[in-house]
């Protein structure tokens, strides 16, 4: 039928439109990182100058390493603490448990601007001040609720008899957790870890409040650089980050089929 064909083409057009909307800015940015003109002038003239000058930009490189370090440490700490908290909430009944679980959600909803201000005031009050330690603490606090929510969701599908069966076979609490419970919730733990990494690595607002000129993360540094005057080096560093993080995501998706786990 003619109408179905038209609908089919409309559907395809819609998909193309959607993907362009998502990826066109990124593609243009990546293209411009290889364009000789610093003012986005065409015709396109191939160069890798921006990448080599990026290599000379110590500030940007330091900030990049800071971001990676903080994101990795945030991921490790918040995934461990969050998974442990989820297990505790799953296993034990105690007073105020519901209240505690309800308290997990507001931090996700509270604007980061407000969280950032609150953290700045608090860290000054307790003497931590600003800097990388403050940023790390802030990121862990921001990432924790995401990990707990994701791991808890996975735990909902866990059959409690499995832990009982393991115990009846002589396994102690540690063996039960490591050999029975953890393998089951692993997809949730990995997903929670990815969330934590993304929350930390993408974090601008809270990092901005908590950084000092010498101790800052990449998003804050990029923002500062743009304010001083835009250079295509920013395009270059952004392109590298996008390629690396997409590769990471694809790898993870390949090894852990989320949702498809039996």
């Amino acid at each position: 039928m003619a109408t179905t064909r038209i609908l089919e083409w409309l559907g395809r057009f819609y998909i193309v439109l959607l993907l362009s909307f998502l990826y066109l800015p990124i593609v243009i940015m990546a293209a411009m990182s290889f364009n000789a003109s610093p003012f986005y002038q065409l015709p396109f003239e191939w160069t890798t100058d921006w990448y080599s000058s990026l290599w000379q930009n110590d500030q940007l490189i330091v900030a990049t390493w800071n971001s990676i370090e903080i994101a990795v440490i945030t991921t490790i700490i918040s995934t461990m603490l969050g998974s442990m908290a989820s297990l505790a909430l799953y296993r034990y009944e105690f007073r105020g448990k519901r209240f505690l679980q309800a308290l997990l959600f507001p931090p996700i909803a509270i604007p980061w601007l407000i969280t950032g201000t609150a953290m700045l005031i608090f860290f000054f009050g307790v003497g931590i001040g600003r800097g990388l330690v403050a940023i790390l603490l802030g990121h862990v606090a921001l990432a924790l609720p995401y990990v707990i929510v994701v791991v808890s969701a996975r735990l909902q599908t866990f059959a409690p008899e499995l832990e009982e069966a393991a115990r009846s076979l002589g396994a102690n609490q540690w063996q039960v957790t490591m050999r029975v419970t953890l393998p089951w919730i692993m997809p949730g733990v990995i997903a929670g870890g990815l969330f934590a990494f993304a929350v930390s690595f993408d974090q601008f607002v809270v990092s901005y409040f908590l950084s000092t000129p010498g101790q800052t993360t990449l998003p804050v540094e990029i923002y500062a650089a743009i304010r001083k005057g835009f250079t295509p080096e920013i395009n270059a560093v952004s392109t590298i980050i996008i390629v690396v993080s997409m590769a990471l995501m694809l790898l993870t998706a390949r090894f852990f089929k989320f949702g498809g786990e039996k």
Partner: protein
Amino acid sequence: MAGVQVANVSRSFGAHKALDDVSIDFADGGFYALLGPSGSGKTTLLRQIAGFDFPDAGRIAIGGESVERVPVEKRCIGMVFQNYALFPNMSVADNVAFGLSVRGEPKAAIAAEVQRALDLVQLGKLGGRRPHQLSGGQRQRVALARAIVTKPRVLLLDEPLGALDKALRVDMQIELKRIQREIGITTIFVTHDQEEALTMSDRIGILRDGRLVQEGPPEEIYDRPQSEFAATFLGDANIFRGDATGNGIMLQDGTTINAASGASVPAGAKASCAVRPERIQISTGAAKPGSADANTLKGQVSKRIFAGNSSTYFVDRDGQTLKVIVQNTGAERLVEGQDVVLRWSPDSTVLIGV
């Protein structure tokens, strides 16, 4: 291997008394069924013996050693769960190996033990499969192999056949019994299926509302129930209520029913008599007179259910409906509405104190 003693065990959850002063002695090597309706406390009792939960009062001993405060992982028990609880992330062989592996036994020894256990449950070739690739009956066998491979002192089964269909259940009953005999392990088996309890166990404990109602061999409980509940929960029974006469009861209309066995109830006190439906002879009246002290009642057939090898007659008599089961011997079948005489021996009648 060892016997299990449960002495005066009580356990409450809030205001609910899940177990109320329960004492049972499970002898070494026996096959016991804990039978009761849901909420009777049978699973709670099994979990106390396993060590998942501790009693508020009382003593539990395995092999003479007090364990009521010992957690499950140190009790050396084997348990089979209703839904099998196989570890989904492990192969069949790894599931069975789990109990040996957490003890840190050498790999070669574990592999040999696992193979022996899988052979015992006739799954020797399926060690490499994953639990989700197995049928219900096969999973059941894996759960059993996993529970016995550690050579536990006692095997606990929580409605292990409940999730299987009827034909498979009968197969597994026979299989379970064979394996239990072969390794001679003390086995405690929770069920709400009276037929399963009757056919499989050496002894049955009937629980109700957290209390042990009666305990003994299946034949004894079936033939000499000590309460109306025991009589009606394990099998079918016709219950008559009246005043004790010394060797039976007198019903309200003056009819006497003689009982040759059961409790001794002082004359005049309230008492009941129980008789099994298959012990009653039903006839059209003119038939042969029985012995002098036989119990006889007149009634009218209100309903007949034909079940092939037997027929069940429901007979109305003075506001009460009695159940009579007659084997299909080829004799003339009675029709609904027919007047009949019921006759049974005092030997088939049990006196129960109220």
